């Protein structure tokens, strides 16, 4: 058992409070708060013309240790960051990295095309592309002036 860095968890609570105030799409949900996660990966959610791009920073995690699922319009990214140990005989001089389980959930907008979500994991970043349903993509209509 190595001594690990203490993270000021209270910040998370504050963030959730803040999110609730705004009540926006992709709002983290109650489920996230009740889950005992070791850490919370940093996430960016970008909206583009035809899709949403969710990127989550997961350095040092194996692809097979990441789980993603959608239930009731709720996209959940979870998994476990395992500490690699070559031998039991090692000696830690510094342990700032945090290991353990993580989970983040996001409520998808109604016009997300759930059937065609794709994900790739590259350089410790999980990139999830959520296409918008065709009907919702804004169309430009030319109105002829008579």
């Amino acid at each position: 058992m190595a001594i690990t860095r203490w993270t000021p968890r209270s910040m998370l609570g504050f963030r959730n409070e803040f999110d609730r105030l705004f009540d926006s799409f992709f709002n983290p949900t109650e489920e996230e708060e009740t889950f005992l996660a070791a850490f919370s990966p940093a996430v960016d959610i970008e909206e583009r013309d035809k899709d949403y791009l969710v990127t989550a920073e997961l350095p040092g995690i194996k692809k097979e240790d990441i789980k993603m699922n959608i239930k009731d319009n709720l996209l959940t990214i979870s998994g476990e960051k395992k500490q690699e140990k070559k031998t039991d005989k090692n000696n830690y001089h510094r342990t700032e990295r945090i290991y353990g389980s993580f989970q983040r959930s996001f409520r998808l907008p109604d016009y997300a095309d759930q059937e065609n979500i794709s994900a790739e994991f590259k350089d410790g970043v999980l990139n999830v592309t959520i296409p918008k349903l065709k009907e919702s993509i804004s169309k430009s209509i030319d109105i002829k002036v008579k």
Partner: protein
Amino acid sequence: MTITRWIPRSSLLGFQNEVDRLMDSVFGTEPETADECLICPSVDIEEYDKYFLLHFELPGINKKDVTINVKDNILTVEGEKKAGKKSDSDKYHLSERVYGKFRRNFRLPETVDTENIEAEYVDGVLNLTVPKLAEALPKQIEIKVK
């Protein structure tokens, strides 16, 4: 310019540096100023019989944007984490990831072979292997019974 998450790094790091100074330990950090370290990567340092292993969490970084050098026995890992290309029409629903410059310094023990440091970047983690000098390795002396 997007609004980004505030991380209480500076106060914690400052404290950590103070502690390091007090301990004056091997692999103690040199003080990092706030402007040099917008995103301070978390680091684990392990010691094995023949080498030290340093792991830097650097998710989503381009290998060519990282430089590693050793001067006066101070190991410096620095670089820049660049945000991906973004069009002006993109809208952020969540922006927690932090981009910018980083730099971390560590004082190496006298007993390492600075000529043969190896680096690899896997799954968002930069792993440095710092070998110990042959003289510093534990020697086993066999006693011959005559």
